[in-house]
C-alpha cells in the first residue's frame, strides 16, 4: 500500500472526487468573506461616524460589529477551512473523497445555520458572549452540519492508503475533533446548564482562545506544512521535531485561554496558568519556525515565485507575531496599558486574518486550478489581491499596535476625560477603516477571479494567467514530488 497517489492520474482522480464539495464550500466562504467584510467595514466606520446606520436597530454598532465577526469566523473561516481540509485530507490519505453528495447537504445546513445566526444577532437575539453570539438554536444546526463534515474528514483519514501520517494530517485530525468539543462544551456550560458568575467569562475565554488556536491556527499550519515542502521540492527541515511541536502546541494552547482574563475578577491562578501556557507555547513556535523557515532557507527566490508560498510566508510570519503578541499581552505591566484597547482586538485579528485567512488564500491559488482544471483568468486581479493583503496586513499591525499603545496610555491617565480619548482615537479608527477597505478590495479582486474560473459556462479559451513563470504553478512540475514527500524518511 505504498502511496499509490504517487502517480499523477490517481492524484487527479482524488482532485476530481473533491471538486464539487470543495467548490461549494469555498464559494460560500468567499461570499461570506465579502458580506462579512462589508459589515465589518461599516462597523469600523461607525466608530468615527457615529451617525452611520444608527437609526435602525438592526445595524446599530453593538449588533453590526459582532454580526460581522460571526459572518467572517463561521461563514468565511469555517467554510474555507472545510474546503481546504477535506481536499488535503483526501490527497494526503491517498484516497478519494467518497459520497461527496452528503457534503452538499452539510454545506447547505452549515450555511443555513450561519445565515440564521447572523440574522439572529442583527435582529436582537444575540447572547453577547464573544464568538457565541448566535442564538442558541443555531448551535444545533451548526453542530449537526459539522458532524457530517468532521465525520468525512476523519473517515477519509481512517481509510488512508498511506503508511505514514504526515504533519499536516495531525493538525487537520486534531482540529477536526477540537472544534466540536470546544463548541459543544461552551454551549452546554453557557446556555444549556449555565455556570454561575464569573465562570461564564472563563468558559468564554477558553472557547475563544481554543477556537483561534486549536482550530484556525492548526488549519493554517496544515497549509504551511504541506505547501512549503511540496512547492520547494525538499523535505521539511528537522522534521523529527515536528511531532513534539504538535503536541506541545496543542497542550499549551488549550491551557492558554485564561491569559485573556488578566486583571479580571476571577481567581488569580486562572490568568496565571494562561500566562505560563503562553510562555510555553514559545517552544512549539520555535520548533515550527525551525521546521518551516528551515525548509525555506536557501530557497527564497523560488518561494517568491510562487504565489501560494508568498501567502504562506505572510501566514507564517503572522503566526510567530501572534505568539509574540499573546506573550506581550501576558506581561502584566504591558497588559495593564494595552488591555481593552484596539491592540487587544489586533491579537485575534492577527491569528484569524493574518495567519489563517492568508494561508487559505495561498491554498486556494494552488488548489482551485487543480480542481477545476482551469487557470486563473487575470494576473492583474491576482496582483491586486496579493498586494492588498500584504500591504493591509503590514499597515494593520503597525498602525494598531501604535494606536493601542496611545489609547492605553490615555485610558490609564485618569486626568484625561473620556471624550478626549475618543477624539485622539478618531484618526486611528479612520485609519482602520481605510485598511479594512483596502483588504476588502483585495477580496473583491479574488472573488471576481474565482468566479471567472469556476463559472461552468466559461469555455472561452484565454491564455492562462500566471503569477510568475509556469514551473511553480503547473501540476506537472509537482507530480514527481507528489506524496512521496513525507517530510523526512529513511
Amino acid at each position: 500500500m505504498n502511496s499509490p497517489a504517487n502517480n499523477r492520474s490517481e492524484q487527479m482522480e482524488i482532485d476530481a472526487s473533491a471538486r464539487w464539495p470543495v467548490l461549494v464550500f469555498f464559494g460560500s466562504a468567499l461570499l461570506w468573506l465579502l458580506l462579512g467584510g462589508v459589515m465589518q467595514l461599516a462597523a469600523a466606520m461607525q466608530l468615527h461616524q457615529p451617525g452611520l446606520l444608527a437609526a435602525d436597530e438592526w445595524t446599530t454598532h453593538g449588533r453590526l460589529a459582532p454580526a460581522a465577526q460571526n459572518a467572517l469566523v463561521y461563514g468565511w473561516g469555517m467554510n474555507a477551512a472545510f474546503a481546504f481540509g477535506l481536499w488535503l485530507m483526501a490527497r494526503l490519505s491517498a484516497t478519494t473523497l467518497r459520497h461527496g453528495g452528503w457534503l452538499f447537504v452539510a454545506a447547505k445546513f452549515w450555511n443555513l445555520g450561519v445565515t440564521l445566526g447572523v440574522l439572529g444577532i442583527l435582529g436582537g437575539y444575540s447572547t453577547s458572549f464573544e464568538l457565541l453570539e448566535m442564538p442558541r438554536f443555531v448551535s444545533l444546526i451548526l453542530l449537526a452540519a459539522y458532524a457530517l463534515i468532521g465525520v468525512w474528514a476523519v473517515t477519509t483519514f481512517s481509510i488512508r492508503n498511506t503508511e505514514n501520517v504526515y504533519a499536516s494530517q495531525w493538525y487537520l485530525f486534531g482540529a477536526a475533533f477540537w472544534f466540536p468539543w470546544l463548541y459543544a462544551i461552551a454551549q452546554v456550560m453557557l446556555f444549556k446548564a449555565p455556570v454561575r458568575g464569573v465562570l461564564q467569562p472563563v468558559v468564554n475565554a477558553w472557547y475563544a482562545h481554543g477556537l483561534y488556536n486549536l482550530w484556525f491556527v492548526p488549519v493554517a499550519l496544515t497549509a504551511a506544512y504541506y505547501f512549503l515542502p511540496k512547492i520547494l521540492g525538499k523535505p521539511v527541515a528537522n522534521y523529527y521535531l515536528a511531532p513534539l511541536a504538535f503536541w506541545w502546541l496543542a497542550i499549551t494552547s488549550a491551557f492558554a485561554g485564561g491569559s485573556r482574563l488578566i486583571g479580571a475578577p476571577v481567581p488569580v491562578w486562572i490568568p496565571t496558568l494562561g500566562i505560563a501556557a503562553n510562555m510555553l507555547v514559545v517552544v512549539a513556535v520555535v520548533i515550527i519556525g525551525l521546521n518551516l523557515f528551515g525548509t525555506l532557507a536557501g530557497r527564497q527566490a523560488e518561494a517568491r515565485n510562487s504565489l501560494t508560498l508568498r501567502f504562506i510566508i505572510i501566514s507564517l510570519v503572522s503566526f510567530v507575531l501572534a505568539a509574540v503578541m499573546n506573550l506581550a499581552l501576558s506581561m502584566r505591566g504591558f497588559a495593564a496599558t494595552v488591555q481593552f484597547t484596539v491592540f487587544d482586538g489586533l491579537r485575534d485579528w492577527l491569528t484569524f486574518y493574518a495567519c489563517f485567512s492568508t494561508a487559505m488564500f495561498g491554498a486556494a491559488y494552488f488548489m482551485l486550478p487543480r480542481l477545476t482544471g482551469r487557470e486563473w483568468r487575470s494576473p492583474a486581479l491576482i496582483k491586486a489581491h496579493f498586494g492588498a493583503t500584504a500591504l493591509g496586513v503590514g499597515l494593520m499591525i503597525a498602525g494598531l499596535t501604535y494606536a493601542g499603545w496611545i489609547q492605553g496610555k490615555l485610558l490609564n491617565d485618569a486626568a484625561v476625560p473620556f471624550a478626549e480619548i475618543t477624539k485622539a482615537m478618531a484618526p486611528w479608527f479612520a485609519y482602520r477603516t481605510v485598511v479594512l477597505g483596502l483588504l476588502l478590495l483585495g477580496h473583491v479582486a479574488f472573488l471576481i477571479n474565482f468566479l471567472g474560473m469556476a463559472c461552468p459556462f466559461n469555455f472561452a479559451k484565454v491564455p492562462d494567467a500566471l503569477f510568475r513563470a509556469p514551473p511553480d504553478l503547473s501540476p506537472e512540475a509537482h507530480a514527481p514530488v507528489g506524496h512521496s514527500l513525507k517530510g523526512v524518511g529513511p
Partner: protein
Amino acid sequence: MKNGLALFLGVFATLALSWAGLLLTAHRQIGGLSQFKDPADDTLHPQPLSGLADQGRLVYQDLGCVTCHTQQVRHEGFGSDLARKWGERGSYARDYIRDQTVLLGQNRLGPDLRNVGARLGDARPEEYAEWFYKLLYAPQSVAAGTNMPAHAFLFDVHPVAGRQPSAHALALPSKFAPGSGLEVVPTARAVALVAYLQSLKDTYDYPIERSRNTPAPKKAGH
C-alpha cells in the same frame, strides 16, 4: 506518528485535560459562591436584580453594549480604573453571582459600566434616569464628543397635539429635540435598560475579599 488511535487519544486527552484543569477546577473553587450575610444588619449581598433590571439586562445583551463597554473594575496597581472613579474598589467574583449572564467585556471604546449606577453624584435617581435617557436618545446632548451611537429606536416620538403631554417625555435641548409639537417618550425597553444600568453598583465591600485583595504593606527600606 502512524497510529490513528494513539493520535485520537492524544487529541482527546489534550482538550479533556484543559477542560478539567481549567473549567472544572474553577467551577469547584467558585461555582458555589453564595451571598454574604452582613453580620451587622443581617442583609444579604450582592442583592438580586429587580425584575425590571433583569429585563434590562436582556436589552443590554440584545443591543450588544458589551461590544464597547466592560463591566469589570481592575484593582489598585493594575490600570487606573479606581482613579477614573469607575468604582470604589476592584471587582470581586462574588459581585457577579447575582447576574444571570456575566459580560465582563473586552473593549473600552466607552467607559466601564460596572458601577455606572453609583455615579449619580447629587442627582436624585429620577434625574439620573433622565440623564441615561438623554444619553441613549442623543448621546451628544449629555456627553459632548462621544462616539456612542444614538439609540433613538428605543424611544417613541409622537405629536403632543390634541392630548395631554406624557409625564415621561424627555426635556431635550432644542438642538437635539425632534421638532416643535413632538415629544420623545422612552419605550418599555428603554425603561428596562435604564433600570438595569442604574442597578449596576457594587458598593458593598466584602470583608473576606477585602482582606484577600489588599496588597501587603511595603516594608520600609525597600
